[in-house]
């Protein structure tokens, strides 16, 4: 099928205003939220903006006929290159499918289209005493479809779990264009938990066209505490002792001095400028439970050497304390023109030494690294500051991230806690997974998508897919025995 014919057929499906194909219109779709250099950019053949599941299905069937890759896209805030069409083809942007179709109070569920923005869902149900628990820092922009594909997390996932814990079922378009509803473990359900497989599959198994999500009741009481420390080590020891003493705060976030320097002048959240680190600790639940745990956590912070403690009970005070955390990335522009936001995860007891390692890596590569992260989960976000215009800066952050990933894996950590593998960390997969592990993952991909149509060149390194193994084998035969396949 030639390009012209493809564009005409696509237009027939989504209408004139539902397609982008001029180079200047495609430019923005070459990127997602990740750093150019850590992730390659690539241009799609066309971008389509469907309004219904039927349209998505028709697009996928057409792509199959034209033998073109298909890449789903939400808001494009992903940080691992997931929404970039590495091998070109058709980008399906789900942003026009943005309706909340049903909210049911007895079921505590919402049926939503994939383009619904994360925060808008929570805002829409707050009056009814509910919220959607996964709250990525990008929640003002990112979509539920993107959250599902990346299995996204956020500050409140410490207590409430990540996206996969809040998805009850998905309507997906399969790579052959068929539409199915997936289900999940439930009494009376006798089938595989396809929902578990699709959440976190980075758009490689199916395109999410509807999601049935769980809504969580807003707790009766909430208190946010700000604890300041004289050293990073004291702060991370406080984290360990709070968790070890049997407390499960709703969230437990850390920001280091460099972050405070960026945030405080911009948002006046009340973080002490001279603190080496602050912890933002939110406790929620039954009022009696909250009052007692706040007392206990305060004592543990003091024991760990907290230099000041403040707590906020009213919504306005809490919002102010949170504002600094939520806007931290936006404030980084005050410190440097560019930053590379990393995402790794270690067992929480290894946090103190890992933070020391991050400092050592910063020194070694002569980089400024700010830390603002989900400390309670051991989920680090070292933020490397740089200036793209300076020769060598991009290379230095890439070398530093190489060292960082190796160090985290060395202490029992993994490649990514919430941003996904995409293309950014695809090359690192063999660091934590054996050939068999990768073959098992490739097997699951193959079951959903035997033609490798959806989001190719992501997650699984080259060489593990069934077809690729055959190809490598044939190459070897050719080299060794001069046998050429016909």
């Amino acid at each position, binding site marked *: 099928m030639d390009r012209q014919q493809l564009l005409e057929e696509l237009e027939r499906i989504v209408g004139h205003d539902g397609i982008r194909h001029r180079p200047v219109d495609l430019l923005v779709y070459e990127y997602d939220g990740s750093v150019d250099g850590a992730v390659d950019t690539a241009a799609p053949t066309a971008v389509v903006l469907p309004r219904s599941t039927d349209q998505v299905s028709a697009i996928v069937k057409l792509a199959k006929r034209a033998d073109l890759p298909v890449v789903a896209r939400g808001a494009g805030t992903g940080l691992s290159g997931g929404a970039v069409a590495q091998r070109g083809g058709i980008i399906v942007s789900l942003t026009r499918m943005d309706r909340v179709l049903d909210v049911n109070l007895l079921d505590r569920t919402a049926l939503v289209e994939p383009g619904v923005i994360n925060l808008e869902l929570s805002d829409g149900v707050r009056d009814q005493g509910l919220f959607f628990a996964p709250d990525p820092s990008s929640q003002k922009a990112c979509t539920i479809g993107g959250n599902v594909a990346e299995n996204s997390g956020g500050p409140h996932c410490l207590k409430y779990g990540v996206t996969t814990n809040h998805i009850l079922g998905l309507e997906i378009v399969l790579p052959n264009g068929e539409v*199915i509803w997936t289900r999940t*473990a439930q*009494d009376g359900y006798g089938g595989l938990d396809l929902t578990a497989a699709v959440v976190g599959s980075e758009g490689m198994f199916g395109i999410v066209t509807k999601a049935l999500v769980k809504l969580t009741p807003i707790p009766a009481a909430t208190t946010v505490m700000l604890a300041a420390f004289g050293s990073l080590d004291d702060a991370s020891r406080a984290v360990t002792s709070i968790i070890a003493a*049997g407390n499960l705060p709703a969230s437990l976030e850390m920001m280091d001095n460099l972050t405070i320097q960026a945030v405080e002048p911009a948002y006046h959240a009340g973080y002490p400028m001279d603190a080496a680190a602050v912890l933002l600790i939110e406790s929620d639940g039954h009022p009696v439970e909250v009052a007692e745990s706040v007392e206990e956590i305060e004592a543990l912070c003091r024991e760990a050497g907290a230099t000041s403690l403040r707590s906020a009970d009213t919504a306005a005070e809490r919002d102010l304390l949170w504002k600094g955390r939520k806007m931290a990335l936006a404030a980084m522009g005050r410190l440097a023109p560019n930053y590379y936001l990393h995402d790794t995860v270690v067992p929480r007891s290894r946090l103190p030494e890992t933070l020391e390692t991050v400092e050592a890596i910063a020194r070694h590569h002569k980089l400024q690294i700010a830390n603002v992260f989900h400390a309670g989960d051991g989920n680090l976000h070292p933020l490397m500051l740089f200036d793209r215009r300076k020769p060598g800066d991009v290379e230095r952050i890439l070398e530093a991230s190489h060292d960082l990933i190796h160090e985290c894996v060395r202490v029992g950590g993994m490649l990514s806690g919430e941003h996904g593998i995409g293309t950014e*960390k695809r090359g690192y997969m063999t660091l934590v997974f054996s050939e068999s592990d990768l073959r098992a993952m490739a097997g699951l991909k193959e079951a*959903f998508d035997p033609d490798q149509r959806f989001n190719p060149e992501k997650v699984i390194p080259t060489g593990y897919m069934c077809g690729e193994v055959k190809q490598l084998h044939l190459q070897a035969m050719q080299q060794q025995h001069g046998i050429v396949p016909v």
Partner: protein
Amino acid sequence: MPMSIHDTTNAHELATGVFADEVVAVESGSRLADFLREATAANHSVIPFGGRRSLATGNPTEPARFGLDLTGLTGILSYEPADLTLSVRAGTTLADIQRALGEGGQELPIDVPFPDVTTIGGLVATGFVGPRRLRSGSLRDLLIGCEFVRGDGLLAKAGGMVVKNVSGFEIPRFLHGSWGALAVLTSVNLKVTPMARADGTLLAAFDDVGLAIDAAHRLIAAEPSIEACVVTSDRDGVRVSARSVGRAGAVAASLDSFAQCLGSEVARLEVEESRAFWRELVNQYAEDNSKTVLALGARPRDIRALATRIGDVTAGDESAIQVSPGFGSLRIMTPTDGEDLATGIVALAAADGANYVLESASPALRSSLPTWGAEPEGIEVMRSVKRQFDPGGILNLGRLPV
């Protein structure tokens, strides 16, 4: 009806009506990989088993070539209280796990029937969801990694020992509830939680199931931190049982407001009594496999109508019903000869759009009523996953419609 059309004279009966020609035991993942690779090559069918508490669940099949005993695959591989993570071999019993965690002041927040024999591998494989799903979730929410051997003998791992992880596809959660039809788990990694300092349950009495379910819905809506809420109808009449866990002060205050909201209080159970009550509640449906047990799932908004209609059919007999209105689960136990009744309930549920799983039944009923209910949507994808993981189709025939 005759027990079986197969000659089982020399076979081992692994569970009622479930046979294998030979039983083998494995004690390591690599031995298991060799075994399954050879079994695939020789086209030998295999039924892996742990505590055998759920082994009779499934469509009737011919005797398997091998029963694969995993109860020797035991032991804790790593437990870091400060990390709240645990890695344990799949044949380890729940009781052993809870004991080890208890020493660190931690637990798995799930209630499991017969923990002394039930294995963690069997629990993950069967994917049962208990009453605590309302707030603490189920085992699925606690799974962070596993090692497994696919039907074709590929030994692999997925996930890790960190509580938050998106490195690669989510195979561990996907294997939850797969009934060992794709792979045999050799170890699982779990997120554990601090042990609740206090535990309390309030029991309230009602005149009928419909009113009890309405009251339960009201209670759940009013109490965001309620741990579990179950409606039962059995020999003891109709009851709502509501549970609270946490610090002592909060639990006591919660039980007060539960009583007020429900407008009834039959009993108040504290700490050990409360824990024992919930253990007993889950045991009740799993203890006697001569009874017929059906599990039904429906949307919470539909569960009242479904429960009421089932209540009409079963009125006056020895049946017992357990409903979790908060997440739409209903379990019904009918007396030994309740075969017509079970068939009737299934038809009734189907008319309401609810699916069922026949968890326990006589061999005769199992041959007439499919265990897994209606064919699930996406069956083609499920079958192609089965072909990838177990290309020889040797694992757990009759379990899951794949």
